[in-house]
């Protein structure tokens, strides 16, 4: 049976009309009418202002929206039929929308974007989240300029985050990526990023797209490929990141898309090649970090309860994943009163590394391993909130740096448990 193409006939027809481009901006959507209009208009303004001479296209790959998402994207075109009174564009800007084949999935959307970029021979590409309603036109410049003008292959964002936002990134993704790959990439699972056509084609050629990893975690895998493949990296400061409602977020899904991909990617690269030296900074346009400290409501109790219940309920599972020593420390921590409980940096780093090793050895279902991390992560998140409750921005950043150094220092533990015992 012939393999179904990711490009529908309509999508292909739209690409034919666009032709070769210098810049492709991908916007993956699924029922994002509430915000996508603002997003594409900011993208359009950014392209007209900062890249007026480049041939550009906005490509919306949609998972089957039932709202006005696709119409809003199409309305962003600039042509001889569709003019914008406050934007004088030198050339046509297509803003196309197409349904990609298959079920809605972020990785599948990225696959469609990469395929389109390849067919249109785009030199520089960016992916913009449709929910980044606070996007400014300058983001386009910040993300694409290093690719277009400075030969960068991957540009990831640096945000000004509230100290209680981005906990998964601060406590796990950033420290672990930094420790294992030796590069201080602040956002290893970025919502918006830019990349060269060269990197895009490299990822497109990987044999991941028919696997789960290709459907749910392709963005993170792209970042890892860039870091391990000798591609030129850069970061750009974009400004504030819109807060996500933590309570509404699906933690297990987020872990699958990020941590699960990290664990999986470790299988692809010999662990011995992981860096031994100190991690290196990445060229950054703008500040490397910025923390805002305005008060936000967080439900620490819920996190603590999630941790304690999880440890209790998942005891059999955790005993097959963690070393006896780590498990014992966890049990002891789980018995402490809420005010006394702390998930220390060392314990957390050890936990994560032992999970990674167990994933590698597939001691149980790998998906269950990732799921089992959820309550432990809640405990770590609780600790972070408590320790930084009154902290200023620099102090928060110092705490994150300390955690990163702990991850780097405990790398030998990962090597020890990787193929050996617990």
């Amino acid at each position, binding site marked *: 049976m012939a393999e179904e193409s990711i490009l529908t006939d309509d999508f292909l027809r739209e690409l034919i*009309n666009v*032709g*070769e481009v210098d810049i492709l901006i991908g916007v993956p959507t699924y029922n994002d009418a509430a915000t996508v209009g603002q997003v594409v208009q900011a993208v359009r303004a950014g392209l007209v202002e900062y890249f007026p001479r480049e041939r550009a296209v906005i490509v919306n790959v949609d998972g089957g929206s039932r709202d006005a998402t696709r119409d809003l994207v199409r309305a962003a075109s600039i042509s*001889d039929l569709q*003019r914008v009174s406050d934007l004088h564009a*030198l050339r*046509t800007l297509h803003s196309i929308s197409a349904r990609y084949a298959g079920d809605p999935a972020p990785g599948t959307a990225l696959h469609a974007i990469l395929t389109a970029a390849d067919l249109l021979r785009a030199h520089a590409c960016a992916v913009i989240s449709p929910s980044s309603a606070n996007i400014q036109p300058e983001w386009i410049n910040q993300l694409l300029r290093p690719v277009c003008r400075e030969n960068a292959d991957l540009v990831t964002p640096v945000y000004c985050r509230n100290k209680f936002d981005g906990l998964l990134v601060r406590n796990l993704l950033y420290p672990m990526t930094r420790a294992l790959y030796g590069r201080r990439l602040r956002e290893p699972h970025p919502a918006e990023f830019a990349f060269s056509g060269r990197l895009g084609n490299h990822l497109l050629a990987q044999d991941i797209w028919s696997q789960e990893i290709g459907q749910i975690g392709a963005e993170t895998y792209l970042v890892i490929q860039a870091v391990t493949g000798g591609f030129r990296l850069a970061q750009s400061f974009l400004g504030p990141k819109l807060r996500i409602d933590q309570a509404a977020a699906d933690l297990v899904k987020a872990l699958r898309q990020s941590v699960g991909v990290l664990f999986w990617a470790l299988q692809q690269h010999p662990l011995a090649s992981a860096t031994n030296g100190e991690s290196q900074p990445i060229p950054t346009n703008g500040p490397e970090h910025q923390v805002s400290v305005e008060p936000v409501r967080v439900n620490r109790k819920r996190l603590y309860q999630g941790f304690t219940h999880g440890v209790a309920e998942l005891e059999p599972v955790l005993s097959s994943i963690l070393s006896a020593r780590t498990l014992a420390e966890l049990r002891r921590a789980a018995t402490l009163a809420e005010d006394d409980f702390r998930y220390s940096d060392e314990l957390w780093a050890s936990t994560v590394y032992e999970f990674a090793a167990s994933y590698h050895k597939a001691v149980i279902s790998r998906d269950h391993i990732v799921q089992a991390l959820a309550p432990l992560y809640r405990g770590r998140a609780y600790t972070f909130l408590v320790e930084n409750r009154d902290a200023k921005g620099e102090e928060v950043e110092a705490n994150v740096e300390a955690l990163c150094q702990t991850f780097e220092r405990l790398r030998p533990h990962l090597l020890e448990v990787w193929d050996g015992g617990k």
Partner: protein
Amino acid sequence: MVLASPQDTLWYKDAIIYQVHVRAFYDSNGDGIGDFLGLSQKLDYLQQLGVTALWLMPIFPSPMRDDGYDIADYYSVHPAYGNLDDFKAFLAAAHQRDIRVIIEMVLNHTSNQHPWFQESRGSRDNPRRNWYVWSETDTRYRGARIIFLDTELSNWAWDPVSKEYYWHRFFSHQPDLNYDNPAVREEIWKVMKFWLEMGVDGFRLDAVPYLVEREATNCENLPETHAILKEFRARIDKEFPGRMLLAEANQWPADLRQYFGDGDEFHMAFHFPLMPRMFMGLKLEDRKPITEILQQTPAIPESCQWCLFLRNHDELTLEMVTDAERDYMYDEYAKDKGMRLNLGIRRRLAPLLDNDRRRIELMNGMLLSLPGTPIIYYGDEIGMGDNINLGDRNGVRTPMQWNGGWNGGFSAADPETLYSPLLLNPVYGFQAVNALSQARFDHSLLSWMKHIIKVRKSTPVFGRGSIEFLYPANHRVLAYMRQLGKETVLVVNNVSSSAQAVELDLRRYKGNILIEMFGRNIFPRIGDLPYLLTMGPYQFYWFRLRRV
């Protein structure tokens, strides 16, 4: 002698106009300068090309500090070109070949060597004092821009003879006439009448927006200017029906519209804003600049016509574009700053297009199929080059290249005595590019130009028909329908350097067969589905629609 052929008062709508500088075309007497007798000898060439009207650049006596646009005598011809009898003989010979003749008429200003100015500056009491615009200060009319930015710092010049300032919108040696003075208007009418009685078929009126000045305005396109022009037109229509007035007004389309009046001012006007956008669209590989400016172009009276051109004797003007567009054009077409002059680019068609035959053909294809009367600049039909080292705009006014022999066949004079050096380089030099060589081959640019002009003349649709743009999703394709009565022509242009596929919505014409007009081959019938065409780089089609 007036043209004997049937008087179609709208003849200019079907015309193929050829712009020529007498000085540059052919030298009959070996003095190194082209002349009327020489031009007469080349009328057969022009007739074979398919030209139906000639526009002669200034032929008047002049100190030639602005290539003849500084006129010193309106009632004669420059002695280097011959005499009035030579001109009359040329006129008769042109008319015998059904070629009309339009001459340049510079109304706005004269040379400072003109006797009128010499008298005017003589004293403040001279009867011709008010024939020009004098002032004790140089602060009047501050709203007027300077046109020749590269050479002039002010629109006022101090006259040491009469100790006052005089007004000049162009070079300082070209003082503006004062059109508020009825005597000036009457004299200019006499000038026009002189040439019309001789048999010329029309005038290209130079620099018409600037005739009248008023404080607190930009001194362009003023109502008083239009009133004067309408007066001239009324007199021409009454005494010389069928003669034509062509406006040189480098303005935005909305301002240009005024020059047509209600069909009672100019018959034709140059569409200046379109021209740079054709070049821009080609470089951008995007039809948007072209369609947008034509969308902004207002409808004009039925008897009126736009004049379209690709290049002319002046710099490729970038006055009527935005700053960003001008920067783009400079970066793409004039990387060498020596190519830039005033607000424009002083290059010929072929060098601008990198001597790419496909692009030259495409641009000419658009010139000859968009709505308007096309003007071909002398030498562009054979792809002549330019010499930017000659200063001012002289690099695009070099001698016509007739053959590969002595002086390119232009003149028998010693090469050092030519009014301008010939082009000698291996790419554009006269031995590589000349009319004789190209006439010998069917596939030369000259032969191609003859063919496309013939195809254009095969139907009145191009000169008199309406235009409706199709807007295919592929922005690299410019497509439009030309229609006149029952005749419909589809024009499709690929403005990109790569092959393109385009789907055209032609459902309204369902059932028609397309007949490609150059090869006259049949293309599939139009049905319900989008009409798919595949096109090579810079390729264009002209299809006649036919229902069988």
